[in-house]
């Protein structure tokens, strides 16, 4: 048996953690689907693609200030949705 597989079987905490992270990622994916397209685009470019606000502004044509406002609303909406899923 490969060493990694043996270690995974021997440490249930680690596999539980991985499962929890997958579950959280799934919940976030569902929650992202509930955002407006503009909020979702800003969130994905900032936190998934890792772009700074200035680069997102160049790509989308929106100002940095409006992007921040969009994102801050997205944070609140995501917080609410993630609570609903639990």
């Amino acid at each position, binding site marked *: 048996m490969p060493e990694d597989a043996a270690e995974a079987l021997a440490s249930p905490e680690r596999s539980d953690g991985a499962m929890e992270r997958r579950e959280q990622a799934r919940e976030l994916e569902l929650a992202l*689907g509930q955002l407006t397209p503009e909020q979702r685009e800003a969130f994905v470019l900032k936190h*998934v693609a890792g772009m700074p606000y200035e680069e997102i502004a160049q790509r989308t044509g929106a100002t940095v200030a409006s992007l921040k406002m969009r994102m801050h609303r997205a944070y609140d909406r995501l917080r609410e949705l993630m609570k609903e899923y639990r």
Partner: protein
Amino acid sequence: MKTFDLRVKQLLDGDLSLADLPPELRAEGEEALRLLAAVDRTPVTLSPALDARVMAVVRRHAKSPAGRAWRWLNTPRDVELRLRVRPWAVWAGALAAAAALALLLGRAVPAPVPGVQARGGTRDSVFVRFVLYAPGARRVAVAGTFNQWDRGAALLAPAGTSGVWTTTLALPVGQHQYAFVVDGARWVVDPSAPAVDDGFGRRNSVVAVTAEGAHL
């Protein structure tokens, strides 16, 4: 709806750190960071087999007779020419060259395209990253003028389970039209790029590639 404190939102934006928050906001800050921790940032990696394939093509090209002939043609050499001519022939030749030059200058010469640089007879290529958010898609490709609109030529790779698909292509300098193809059938314009009408009722995204980079 219970909203995050503005300072917690600044923490999520990366403008503040957890230590910058007052003690009463730490728990809220940690909750917010847990939310972001669920973002799947699995990096998109290229297969090591790709490097091997590219290098195999490069080596094959280097060994080919056509490649050797091309290098022989391109290698600078000193060439000495000796001519025995009569003086009147030199003057006649100079006059003919002047007349040809005058004719050429009288014609309209097309201006070079701004931003396009040619070097050594071949155009430069620039790496361009394509990103599409398409949750639920099973397959995403990018097709455009740079790959003869072949919907199977450039597949995007999913970034984990985030719904984000990406690929990086080397595009020649110039303007290119393209669109994403989701699940082999649905054509989707790039929401973050300008689009033009293709003349057949559809829209194509446009990217301008210069030696300095890609411009949407």
